[in-house]
């Protein structure tokens, strides 16, 4: 397959790196201000050298990548809220040309799911977004295999940064600010950690799960979610929880009652009480009890594998 990749952050770069292993050719890449296009495959080293030296990937406009020759557009620009631009327009451009779109960007799927599905209905192309929920973990493909109507609820930990902070606080008895600074040093937390520690990132993922599980019966966006972050959790709260054999995790829920994300008490030995940056999702199935999927929920190569699995499903 020929891939056009929008966005060259950690995820976009990893897709470029791994695409040949999966038998795909990258015919275009674009960042926010430039593009490199070559129908026979871009020169990866030259493109990233130039990005390093000049801050651009090529001499073209980003729109050139949208107009390039490709089978699948990979949308890996940063997640934006509200109108979910420019990611949404990138996907629209692909679908209007009857090409497939694979998203790692949560914005269009969480904030404009209805619009996105309407575009897909009018197109020969298909929209896939496994990489938007839980990185490498095959969450959406498991739902597709099981059948969304066979899953009554999804719960779990889908933000590695918040989980790292809470599990370090619990293990070391350290305060929030201290552990957050450590997480920033380790590259686990961003310089501006708000998206993660305020629960927004996890909420977007559970909004997406709700959209998938409700099968169009109801469309959710971030506005519909009840979201609480972890900034206000003192170390003493984790101590008191531990005395009682429990701990606190930032847990998301996509249930018939809607989407909810917030710090919750869970037993220390509970399946959902994963430690470090690990993610986990628990499905409540109609006929088969609970199902747990766990793994790495973020990172360049991890997320790229989910993107390339989606691309594989489109072949």
């Amino acid at each position, binding site marked *: 397959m020929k891939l056009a990749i929008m966005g060259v952050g950690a995820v976009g770069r990893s897709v470029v790196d791994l695409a040949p292993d999966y038998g795909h050719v990258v015919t275009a890449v674009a960042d926010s201000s430039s593009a490199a296009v070559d129908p026979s495959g871009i020169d990866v080293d030259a493109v990233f050298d130039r990005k390093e030296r000049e801050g651009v990937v090529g001499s073209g406009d980003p729109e050139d990548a949208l107009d390039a020759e490709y089978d699948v557009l990979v949308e890996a620009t940063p997640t934006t809220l509200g109108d979910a631009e420019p990611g949404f327009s990138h996907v629209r451009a692909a679908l209007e040309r009857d090409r497939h779109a694979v998203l790692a960007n949560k914005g269009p799927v969480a904030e404009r799911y209805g619009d996105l599905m309407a575009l897909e209905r009018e197109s020969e192309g298909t929209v896939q977004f496994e990489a938007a929920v839980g990185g490498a973990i095959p969450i959406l493909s498991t739902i597709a295999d099981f059948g969304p109507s066979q899953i009554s609820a999804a*719960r779990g930990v889908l933000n590695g940064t918040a989980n790292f902070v809470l599990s370090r606080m619990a293990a070391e008895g350290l305060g929030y600010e201290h552990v957050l600074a450590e997480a920033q040093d380790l590259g686990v937390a961003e310089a501006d950690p708000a998206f993660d520690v305020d629960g927004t990132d996890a909420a977007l993922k559970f909004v997406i799960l709700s959209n998938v599980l409700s099968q169009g019966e109801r469309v959710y966006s971030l506005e519909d979610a009840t979201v*609480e972050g972890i900034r*206000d*959790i*003192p*170390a*003493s*709260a984790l*101590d*008191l*929880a531990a*005395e*009682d054999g*429990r701990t*606190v995790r930032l*847990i998301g829920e996509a249930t018939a009652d809607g989407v909810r994300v*917030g*710090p*919750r*008490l*869970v*037993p220390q030995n*509970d399946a*959902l009480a994963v430690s470090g940056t690990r993610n986990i999702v628990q499905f409540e199935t109609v006929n088969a009890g609970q199902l747990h999927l766990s793994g790495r929920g973020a990172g360049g190569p991890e997320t790229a594998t989910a993107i390339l699995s989606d691309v594989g499903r489109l072949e």
Partner: protein
Amino acid sequence: MSDSDEAVTSDAEHETDGGERPQTHTIRLELVDKPGELLSALHPIADNGGNLLSIFHERGNLTPRGHIPVEVDVECPPDRFETIVSALRDEGVNVIQAGAERYGEELTLLLVGDIVDTDLSDTLRRIESSTDATLADLSLSAPDGRGGASSARLRLATRTGRTDEVFEHVHDVADEKGLHVVEPLVEVSE
């Protein structure tokens, strides 16, 4: 269950040594699915002067804790009833409901924030009075003393099926005082 007949007769005309006519009570229990569990749960009833009228053993149906619900109808003088319930508890039997009183679930939750200076006793009193929950246990941790961020762990006993309502009220009280509530993920007790 004829062996219990010796303690109390079902003859309504006959006064027992409890001094009052026996009444029928319903007790709901939770049993672990193990051989002998039912038998050992019924002993305290007979031993304390209760007359077993019927046992409804809902095998195949599970409580939220994964135990088997058992409903027992017992006839005994009113003043014996509490003794029977405590004897059952002493045997380690989980009594969910006895007579009109329901001993439902226990909820553990955390309150975090400036708990001390927002009048902890008032907070607890209001949580209890706005719901039918009772405070079963409280632990407080305020490492920075008054005024700093502190935490409290509350164990609330509440009636089965009322947990959502309890959380709603706890949130109302907490919101008013600028406190945060950390709810348990699954609202059943251990």
